[in-house]
């Protein structure tokens, strides 16, 4: 029972990060119908920029509280990723908006690998140990079940960002413009919405969320390196599809569900398979879920959009 509870908590932590990244995928998909393959790599850039910024500030202004360094790292990483997100949209995707459907996808894959390569050139191939600025000593929440302050921060920050995004999309004029653009570009622009601006804004917001997610992943695992964005990116995409791509609430639900399935699966796979499989197969769950969802319910748990849109 305690194992199960522990795995549920771990799953919630991972799932909340997936949810934040999935929001980025789902927003771009909702507006452009494009899978932004490079989204996972924006997350990686966020983590590495934060790493550099934190080590810089620690050397330049020593003696501050660790939380301040953490906040400084986030404050540098978020604008950096926003700039990258905007640049990607402007240079790689905008010109292909009316191209045949494979073209933007192939460009997106190219952008993803370009970001990885550039990160490899700037930060090298090594794993950088990410400064542990928030306590990592586990706290006993219930008897025998532990949670570290980093994990608590992760869940808290994710929740805050999700609420913020939902408010932005549902309660502001900007959000209304975004929803209108997602509904129909042409009509939205006839109504006076600057659709190009809104699309760029979507990328910028998504990238800022990815930056925070990247910093949280790096803080949880204590490392940052050039290919760290690939798996979370893929899983967050799975989460977005699971919840119903294009749907904000779906991305959150999908992220949490995927995190739970993965954590519980990883905890029990060895017993279930009689020792044949172990937790190194953890990454398979996301793909299996993705396959099952796409075959049996391509619209996802909450989605109304049709996947088979030829």
């Amino acid at each position, binding site marked *: 029972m305690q194992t199960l509870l522990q795995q549920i908590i771990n799953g919630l932590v991972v799932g909340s990060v997936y949810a934040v990244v999935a929001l980025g995928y789902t927003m771009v998909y909702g507006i452009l119908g*494009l*899978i932004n393959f490079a989204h996972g790599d924006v997350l990686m850039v966020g983590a590495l920029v934060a790493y550099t910024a934190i080590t810089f500030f620690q050397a330049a202004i020593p003696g501050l509280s660790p939380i301040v360094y953490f906040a400084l790292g986030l404050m540098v990483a978020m604008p950096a990723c926003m700039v990258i997100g905007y640049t990607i949209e402007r240079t*790689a995707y905008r*010109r*292909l908006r009316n*191209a*045949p*459907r*494979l*073209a*933007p*996808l*192939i*460009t997106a*894959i*190219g*952008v*993803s*690998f*370009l970001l*990885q*390569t550039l990160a*490899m*050139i700037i930060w090298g191939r090594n794993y950088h140990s990410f400064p542990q600025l928030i306590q990592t000593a586990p706290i006993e929440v219930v008897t025998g079940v532990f949670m570290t302050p980093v994990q608590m921060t992760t869940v808290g920050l994710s929740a805050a960002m999700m609420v913020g995004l939902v408010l932005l999309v549902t309660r502001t004029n900007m959000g209304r413009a975004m929803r209108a653009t997602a509904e129909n570009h042409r009509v939205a622009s006839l109504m006076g919405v600057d659709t190009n601006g809104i699309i760029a804004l979507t990328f910028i917001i998504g990238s800022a969320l990815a930056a925070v997610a990247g910093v949280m992943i790096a803080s949880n695992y204590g490392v940052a390196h050039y290919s760290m964005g*690939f798996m979370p990116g*893929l899983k967050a*995409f799975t989460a977005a*599809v699971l919840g119903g791509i294009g749907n904000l609430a779906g991305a959150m639900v999908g992220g949490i569900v995927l995190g739970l399935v993965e954590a519980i699966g990883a905890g029990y796979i060895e017993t279930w398979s009689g*020792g*044949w*499989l*172990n937790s*190194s*197969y953890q*990454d*398979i769950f*996301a*793909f299996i879920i*993705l*396959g099952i969802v*796409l*075959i049996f319910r*391509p619209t996802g748990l909450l989605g109304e959009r049709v*996947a*088979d*849109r*030829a």
Partner: protein
Amino acid sequence: MNDISQAIPFLGKRNPKAALFALVVIALVSPVVAAMFGNTWVRILNFAMLYILLSIGLNLVVGFAGLLDLGYIAFYAVGAYTWAFLASPHFGLHLPFWIVLPLGAGFAALAGIALGFPTLRLRGDYLAIVTLGFGEIVRIFMNNLTHPVNITNGPQGIDQIDGMSLFGLDLNRGLQITEGFQVKSLFLYYYVFLAFVVLAVILVKRIQVSRIGRAWAAIRDDELAAKAIGINTRNLKLLAFAMGATFGGVSGGLFGAFQGFVSPESFTLMESIAILTMIVFGGMGNLAGVIVGALALSFLPEVLRYIALPVQMAIFGKVFLDPEVLRMLLLSLAMILMMLLKPAGLVPAQSRYSKADLLGDKEIAQ
């Protein structure tokens, strides 16, 4: 075979026959020329042949049928591991070429169908992600299937794989023609690979102009319309997956035999992307383009390796961009820039699909 001659610029359009002749000569002589620069280059040439085979196979799926497959390398892995299991000391089996290669191709085709079946209804971008996931699953299994029974030997891979032996000729030993003259193993492999490439080109040319090829083109251009005119889209998509996978399986087998060693490291997502880039770079859906792309992108990184490293050493006194980084940089830039500037590739495919156009045969045209 006219459009293959397009692989040679300028001459290919004006005098296809001469270009084709030139192509044959180049194909036959190139290992000798490469050997003048050292045996490394012959090896690179051999790998280039494998990349051509892979690109031709992936082109069937992506270029002809329009199904974006990002896990193509998994079929290559299936072929290579089949060879490694059946012809190495790992399980103590040493089956001959004529059994192992068809088996590898068959397993790969089965894997292709297994992947194709659940993904039939998916549109382009979902399909890409699912195939990518498939490739990753295969890699995870290769890395971890070591206990309770050691099947794949994990990240260490399997070594001491048997070479190829054809008609009693062991390709690993080389061919002793006279006392003083020996055809080296590397060359033998080159010509065997070349034979496979030629076979593949002829086969694919014939498929492209057949009912199947035209049906694929119809599915690629408009699936709904294709269905409406009575094309069995399900079976044809499955066929595309299976055939593409077969090419992957065969080249994987050749790779295993040539390299003598397989490990999960050779079958990363990066390789799938590299093959995709070759197709995009050369010209999706066009055989000549695909061959040009595969050759260009297997040689450019190697040339860069020999030029960029000394240049960096001379200017900065140390190496900033190592060869692997250069390769990734080249591939990713090639992919982005081609899509933005010249989406049809270096040698664009013809948009018309009549038999006469493709064969360039005047008699049929009249």
